[in-house]
């Protein structure tokens, strides 16, 4: 097991390097001057050049990359051009908030998805199955940024039940798991959960349906196992695959919440990213994408290892 883990970690390193190169190059392809956003509109050419030198933007590309990566190794991701604050602090704070949102969405989505999927798979080709399928397809088809706006209008503006924006009465810094804060989480988490509900339900349905029709299940029945025991058996078999799908979904929730965070002003990484894009804040853009991508890579690793732990056959492939 440990050697498998080690092998996967070593395989991860070139990917991580590639990710850093892409993150670095990504912002180099950007047209326009990143300093435009922060200089007063009538700043003189000299003032602009001075500012450019401060941010090292006057150096050649490979030099900029070398500086960037060596600073990175020391945990220094540079300073945001727009806010002047260290990128690392901004990104990790935001990722923390995004994790709160992503985990909450997962807590909503996964049990519902698994339950629905299992129902549909177990009662395959019944009306129930069709209803669940309809729900899951609708879930993956709905543009969730639009759903978010609709929910705000209904539950915040018209009914006044839930807040429309922010991460709590005092901002995200004093986040705690009480109703005062969780109120702020309800709408974005539910909106974000809609897609994974659909995806998890579909996966679990297929898994459960397939397993139940397979030979060994028939054999288990033939051996005189009770219905409940068979179900438990099937569940364990499906767990490895379901786990991998859900692990990846969690990664997607984190990276994919940008539109939702924008709609709800949730102070997470997606919100940070969209600010960085519109202010052309290159160091911040780089840092946010890098951290999210590396998180996703690590998530993949964890899922792979966990999967191998549950189902040893996977290690061999």
């Amino acid at each position: 097991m440990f050697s498998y883990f080690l092998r996967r970690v070593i395989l991860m390193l070139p990917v991580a390097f590639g990710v850093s190169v892409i993150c670095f190059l990504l912002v180099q392809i950007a047209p326009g001057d990143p300093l435009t956003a922060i200089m007063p509109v009538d700043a003189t050419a000299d003032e602009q050049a001075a500012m450019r030198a401060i941010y090292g933007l006057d150096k050649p590309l490979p030099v900029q990359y070398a500086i960037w990566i060596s600073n990175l190794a020391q945990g220094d991701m540079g300073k945001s051009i727009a806010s002047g604050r260290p990128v690392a602090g901004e990104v990790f704070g935001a990722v923390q908030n995004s994790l709160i949102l992503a985990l909450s969405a997962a807590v909503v989505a996964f049990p519902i998805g698994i339950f629905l999927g299992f129902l549909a798979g177990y009662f395959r080709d019944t009306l129930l199955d069709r209803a669940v399928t309809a729900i899951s397809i609708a879930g993956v088809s709905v543009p969730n940024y639009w759903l978010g706006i609709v929910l705000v209008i209904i539950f915040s503006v018209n009914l006044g039940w839930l807040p429309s924006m922010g991460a709590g009465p005092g901002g995200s810094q004093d986040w705690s798991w009480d109703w005062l804060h969780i109120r702020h989480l309800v709408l974005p988490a539910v909106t974000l959960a809609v897609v994974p509900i659909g995806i998890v339900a579909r996966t679990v349905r297929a898994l459960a349906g397939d397993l139940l029709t397979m030979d060994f299940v028939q054999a288990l029945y033939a051996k005189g196992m009770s219905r409940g025991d068979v179900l438990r058996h099937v569940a364990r078999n499906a767990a490895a695959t379901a786990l991998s799908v859900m692990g990846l979904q969690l990664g997607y929730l984190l990276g994919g919440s940008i539109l939702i965070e924008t709609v709800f002003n949730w102070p997470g990484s997606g919100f940070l990213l969209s600010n960085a894009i519109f202010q052309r804040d290159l160091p911040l853009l780089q840092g946010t994408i890098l951290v999210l991508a590396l998180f996703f890579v690590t998530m993949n690793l964890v899922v792979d290892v966990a999967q191998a732990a549950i189902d040893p056959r996977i290690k061999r492939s």
Partner: protein
Amino acid sequence: MTAVDVTVLDAPATVSGQGYWSGVGARLLRDPLTLICLGVILLLILSAAFAPWLGLADPYKGSMIARLKPIGTPGHILGTDEQGRDMFARLIYGGRLTLFIGLTPVVLAFFIGGTLGIVAGYAGGWINTGIMRTVDVFFAFPSVLLAIAISGALGAGIVNSLVSLTIVFIPPITRVSEAVTSGVRALDYIDAARASGANALTVIRVHVIGNVLSPIFVYATSLTSVCMILAAGLSFLGIGVRPPEPEWGLMLNTLRSAIYVNPWLSALPGLMIFVTSLCLNLLSDGVRSAMNVRD
């Protein structure tokens, strides 16, 4: 936002012949839901393609006095938008751009990713390693993040959106196509063909593509709705299509404040995205089951 389904399909090693395709056709004909969805999609594509000849109002010409008219206004069957432009015309023309930007990247990625995957799977060795490890790097980014990052860096514009979305969808298609090709390559009759002295291109053309195409195709169709939602999402964020072009995601964005004046009107573009993506998903499911591809 929908995440790209990364499950790599089991490679079906069936040799598809004429009988297989007629079977698929027959099964499709017995599936009314899929047919309805196919109809809706075709209708959208046709009306988008022939929009200029449908006698619609000018989707760019507005009137400040006639802005935000409700649905059912005489002369403007679906009302007017925030600049007094005819909503019906803009939704139809909007379908044109939305479908174009939503489907083109999948088609491009189908060819590019398919080719890369076949080459990698067939050649094996360092070519495989080179291609697949590069793909892995792109795969390390969640799809939404990658699309937004590239579009955000490049800035708004139709071409930029196409580029960023195509880059997003090449890796998953390459993976599927590589997996399927490797599976096919291991089969005995390919070895036989190679042993008989046929050159690589011929083997690929005759034996591999025939077997590999349909699983990749099925997989690619399952990506279309994701791609369309994502494309509209880019425009919604302001890093996709630029105004004043009609595009559903952008219309959703520019009509956002109208939600307080006329909520139904501002819901229309979102509804169009929803219905279209629903039909694309159902269609892809229908095709998938008609072709006997397992989930």
